[in-house]
């Protein structure tokens, strides 16, 4: 097939491309492009009408310029014109331009949609395909609105050509992904499932993608696809390599279709029907057997296609997690790949084995490969493969091999790639803690970690070791001795100094009996590092010194000397200076008793899930971290960030001080600092004029409130602890005038909502997204209507799947029926196990009475007539309040419309005012509501008046709405 005949004759285009390629410099290229743009612009603007060919040529040039990376701001209209050309190539270029360059210019979209509509109804399969491709490529909401009902019809119509069916299926898939609410299930859905039986393999290949997506969301409606998929798969797997003609790829029958079938089956639990299940198991066994057969071709394409099916089959086996025999076979197969000469296969085997390691049936089998994996970690030349090996080691670690794996990971860290060090450090820290049998091993490991990869040891890691040392008195002496020895090294990492300072400050006394580590030696050792450290570490060391004064009165003079010297007491850093001044003062005026109370040993930390684990999850988590969350961190941490944090990732790590408030109120152990705080104030008031007058009281407390400022805290966020999420985290009020959005989000879980209401019925879709890479187990949700809400609202739902895979999202549908008016919100309780810890969360669901509004249009005199009818005093509720949000007209209008009422124009004599009317539909009765909102822009105030035929509704609506404006 010579290429010569393939050009469609745009000589001008080819010349232009040649010119561009001949440009010697970027400047020359830009010059040439600008010249061309000017030329095209003048042609488009010229008086002479362009013929189709020229238009096509210029549009094509614009496209080329755009693809070179330049902005194009004209030519859209000409491209749209091309769509209605009856010449195929012109139409084709027009569609290409639209697909690549479309923007949501609504005027244009209407024209485009028009052209598409014409082509779809042309009955010319080539034109129809072009139009469908365009919809699939652009997939905008406007297109979904225009075509979501049309395309299913084309897809299942008996007379549609196969190629059109294929495009229609994938086009519908795209629309379903962009706007699931617009693609309505219907009679066509059952016929789509039967496309799995279609004669044409291409149709099956395209349709199965659509079916997979639809059945993820509506598993029940598409259940029948399981048996169809199994029989189709079985036919392919057992066919000879020549049976499927052109669908055989390098001697592998229909690899793409096989993979997609296996993927579809992963949307469902194992088939219940014994015969279907038997057939499927047979297929899986055949696939595993084929992996052992000699290859039919030496080409890599053959083995890739074959193994693609194999890996997909293994994914299905892991998904079922119920056939020990298959799991172990899968594991053995992957074991063979671990030593394969193809890097790609080694990579995939490591990756796939990671999931096998979490199954109880195959965990032991995976463990047998430990030596190979360790070897991979040491010898693989590609960092991405080493990364997989490290992941697998982490996954296969348990009590029996923890010491070996941690040791290997530590020694790997010495030479590890910079890109994966931080993650490795976190993993080592987690494993060391999780499988620590004796805590001295744990302390050794973490100190080694700091020694080897100090720069990559994040705050969480060293906070954690301190928490553990403080909470376990059996390890404190050992820890003090070990840090003391570690600090002897001539160069030690700053993180080591931090840990050392903290631990010696708390437990230095435990080793002070040894003359080699007498108090003064300890102090001198710490102080020898002081000048090399950054401000936060120095601040921490100063706190350690004051603790020394309490622990070892004999060091008092030396330390006071240090504090008194100019470099401390006149330090240009306010924090350091303040500490020096205050500590000096404290040490000189407080009695020993007071000192002993103020500088008492830290109370144990409340036991919690490791903060490092949270960090790792966050690092690996698939979900994007929302801005709100970042802001939360910043806000909560802001007060103290100046003290303890450094590095570019300050904002992204969960701030260690984030839970400050939570701890203050939640942990009873913090009573000591509070008491001491008032003591300290007394001390200062005695000191009279000598007391530093600068700084608010909270700063005065700082020296005592060590626990709150510098001493580490587990950085967990409060929502993990509290069973009921604070309202602020729920964004609840947003939903009064809005039906879709994010209801709740924390580091583990994101809950999205979509809802729709008709009459007195509502349907709410809840999307639970697992933001971590780890499975949530025993995931259950319960919806309840507390108290008097029970007879008012009827909420029904089905249980959700108990497992939510890492990164996956599951959906739950709630059917809501409003029986009578109500004011409380139903509660949603979510429980799940995450890494062994039970998470429990209760949220309010944004179901409010206004959701059941039907808008009512009426003219001015009708309105006022009804207004007068509702004149009983209890029917009216009124509130005057200050504006909390923008008073912009458009914003207000959008909110009032979102409320569900009809916004009536030309009703109120004052055009500034807003008047709305609607009927609330409940099962038992209908409640008419009239609303009037009078803004006063000058005073930034509103007066809101509601009159409803039922007084409780007036009051409730008034409360709800007052928060909205």
């Amino acid at each position, binding site marked *: 097939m010579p290429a010569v005949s393939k050009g469609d004759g745009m000589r001008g285009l080819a010349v232009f491309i040649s010119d561009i390629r001949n440009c010697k410099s970027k400047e020359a290229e830009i010059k040439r492009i600008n010249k061309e743009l000017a030329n095209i612009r003048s042609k488009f603007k010229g008086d002479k009408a362009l013929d189709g060919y020229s238009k096509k040529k210029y549009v094509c040039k614009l496209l080329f310029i755009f693809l070179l990376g330049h902005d194009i701001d004209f030519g859209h209209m000409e491209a749209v014109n091309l769509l209605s050309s009856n010449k195929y190539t012109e139409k084709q270029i027009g569609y290409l331009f639209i697909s690549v360059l479309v923007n949501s210019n609504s005027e244009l979209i209407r024209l485009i949609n028009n052209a598409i509509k014409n082509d779809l109804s042309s009955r010319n399969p080539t034109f129809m395909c072009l139009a469908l491709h365009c919809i699939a490529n652009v997939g905008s909401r406007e297109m979904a609105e225009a075509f979501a009902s049309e395309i299913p019809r084309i897809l299942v119509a008996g007379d549609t050509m196969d190629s059109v069916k294929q495009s229609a299926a*994938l086009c519908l898939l795209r629309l379903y992904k962009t706007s699931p609410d617009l693609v309505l299930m219907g009679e066509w859905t059952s016929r789509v499932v039967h496309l799995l039986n279609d004669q044409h393999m291409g149709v099956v290949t395209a349709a199965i993608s659509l079916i997979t997506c639809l059945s993820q969301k509506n598993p029940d409606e598409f259940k029948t696809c399981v048996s169809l998929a199994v029989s189709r798969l079985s036919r392919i797997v057992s066919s000879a390599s020549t049976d499927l003609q052109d669908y055989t790829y390098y001697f592998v029958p229909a690899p793409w279709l096989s993979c997609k079938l296996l993927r579809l089956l992963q949307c469902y639990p194992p088939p219940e029907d014994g015969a279907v299940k038997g057939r499927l198991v047979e297929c899986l066994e055949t696939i595993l057997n084929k992996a052992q057969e000699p290859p039919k071709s030496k080409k890599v394409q053959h083995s890739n296609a074959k193994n693609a099916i194999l890996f997909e089959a293994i994914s299905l086996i892991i998904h079922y997690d119920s056939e020990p025999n298959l799991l172990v076979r899968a594991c053995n197969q992957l074991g063979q790949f671990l030593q394969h000469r193809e890097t790609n296969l080694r990579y995939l085997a490591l990756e796939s084995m990671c999931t096998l390691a979490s199954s109880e049936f195959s965990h032991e089998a995976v463990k047998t490969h430990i030596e190979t994996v360790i070897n991979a970690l040491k010898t693989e030349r590609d960092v991405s493969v080493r990364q997989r090996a490290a992941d697998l080691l982490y996954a296969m670690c348990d009590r029996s091999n923890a010491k070996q794996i941690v040791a290997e990971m530590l020694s790997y860290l010495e030479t590890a790639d910079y890109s994966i060090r931080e993650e490795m450090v976190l993993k080592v820290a987690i494993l060391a803690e999780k499988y620590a049998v004796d805590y001295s091993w744990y302390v050794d490991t973490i100190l080694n970690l700091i020694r080897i990869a100090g720069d990559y040891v994040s705050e969480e890691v060293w906070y954690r070791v301190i928490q553990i040392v403080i909470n376990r008195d059996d390890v404190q002496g050992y820890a003090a001795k070990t840090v003391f020895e570690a600090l002897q090294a001539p160069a030690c990492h700053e993180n080591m100094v931090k840990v050392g300072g903290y631990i010696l400050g708390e437990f230095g006394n435990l080793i002070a009996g040894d003359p080699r580590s007498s108090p003064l030696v300890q102090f001198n050792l710490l102080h020898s590092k002081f000048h090399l450290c950054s401000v936060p570490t120095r601040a921490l060391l100063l706190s350690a010194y004051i603790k020394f004064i309490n622990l070892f009165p004999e060091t008092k003079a030396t330390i006071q000397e240090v504090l008194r010297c100019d470099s401390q007491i006149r330090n240009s850093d306010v924090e350091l200076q303040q500490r020096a001044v205050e500590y000096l003062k404290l040490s000189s005026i407080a009695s020993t008793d007071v000192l002993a109370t103020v500088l008492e040993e830290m109370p144990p930390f409340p036991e919690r899930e490791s903060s490092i684990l949270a960090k790792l999850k966050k690092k690996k988590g698939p979900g994007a971290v929302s801005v709100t969350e970042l802001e939360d961190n910043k806000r909560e941490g802001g007060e103290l960030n100046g003290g303890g944090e450094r590095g570019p990732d300050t904002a992204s790590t969960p701030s260690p001080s984030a839970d400050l408030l939570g701890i203050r109120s939640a942990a009873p152990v913090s009573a000591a600092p509070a008491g001491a705080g008032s003591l300290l104030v007394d001390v200062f008031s005695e000191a009279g004029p000598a007391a530093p007058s600068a700084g608010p009281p909270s700063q005065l407390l700082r020296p005592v409130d060590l626990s709150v400022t510098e001493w580490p805290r587990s950085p967990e966020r409060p929502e993990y602890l509290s069973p009921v999420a604070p309202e602020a985290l729920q964004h609840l009020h947003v939903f009064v005038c809005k039906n879709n959005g994010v209801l709740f989000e924390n580091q583990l879980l994101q809950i999205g909502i979509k809802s729709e209401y008709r009459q007195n019925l509502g349907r709410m879709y809840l999307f639970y997204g697992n933001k971590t890479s780890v499975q949530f187990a025993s995931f259950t949700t319960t919806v309840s209507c507390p108290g008097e809400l029970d007879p008012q609202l009827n909420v029904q739902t089905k249980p959700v799947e108990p497992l939510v895979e890492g990164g996956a999202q599951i959906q739950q549908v709630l059917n809501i029926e409003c029986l009578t008016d109500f004011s409380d919100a139903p509660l949603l309780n979510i429980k799940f196990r995450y890494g062994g810890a039970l998470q429990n969360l209760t949220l309010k669901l944004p179901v409010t009475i206004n959701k059941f509004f039907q808008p009512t249009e009426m003219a001015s005199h009708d309105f006022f007539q009804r207004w007068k009818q509702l004149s009983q005093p209890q029917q009216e509720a009124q509130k005057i309040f200050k504006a909390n949000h923008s008073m912009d007209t458009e914003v207000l209008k959008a909110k009032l419309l979102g409320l569900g009422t009809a916004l009536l124009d030309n009703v109120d004599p004052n055009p500034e005012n807003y008047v709305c009317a609607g009927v609330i539909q409940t099962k038992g009765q209908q409640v008419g509501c009239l609303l009037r909102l009078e803004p006063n822009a000058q005073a930034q105030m509103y007066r809101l008046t509601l009159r409803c035929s039922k007084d409780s509704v007036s009051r409730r609506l008034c409360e709800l709405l007052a928060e909205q404006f």
Partner: protein
Amino acid sequence: WTSVLCFSITHETSLTLFFWIFLLLQMQFMLLFSRQGKLRLQKWYVPLSDKERKKISRDLVQTILARKPKMCSFLEWRDLKIVYKRYASLYFCCAVEDQDNELITLEIIHRYVELLDKYFGSVCELDIIFNFEKAYFILDEFLLGGEAQETSKKNVLKAIEQADLLQEVRLHQHIFPRNVCTVVSLRISYDVLNVFQQMEDIFM
């Protein structure tokens, strides 16, 4: 801090992305670029702004060009998995979901190269530069919305041929010198690197 997708700018987008993650295990985008890092073809299957696209392609091209020949064809990049393969002077690179099947994606790339090769007759980079629109049309016949639409080589080419037959104007010759580019074809389909490594230096 790698886990944050650079394009999760607002809450709204983060939600959309989450819906995407749940709904699709499909290709997110496909890029073709030269050894010099010049983009030759880009196809986006997820809605992203122009700015985001530019940033993603710039970063990704750099990342891939920095990799050595024998390295594995898959890499984790942000939250995506990148599957790429080099054919002579061109890199073909697809971004798929983390859970997606890497090997079958690799063969999607190969099938696309085969289609180009068959259509142009020993395709080379210049064919794709000068007939970029054809490269897009062929891709649309093969992959639609990031999913395989038709995996039979014959059927895809038949569709393109039929379209070509509808052309009114036929040109008699190609503009760029055919002899240059046939020498350095992408015909690597069979054995990629060893033979053509020397050749590609002639070219560009």
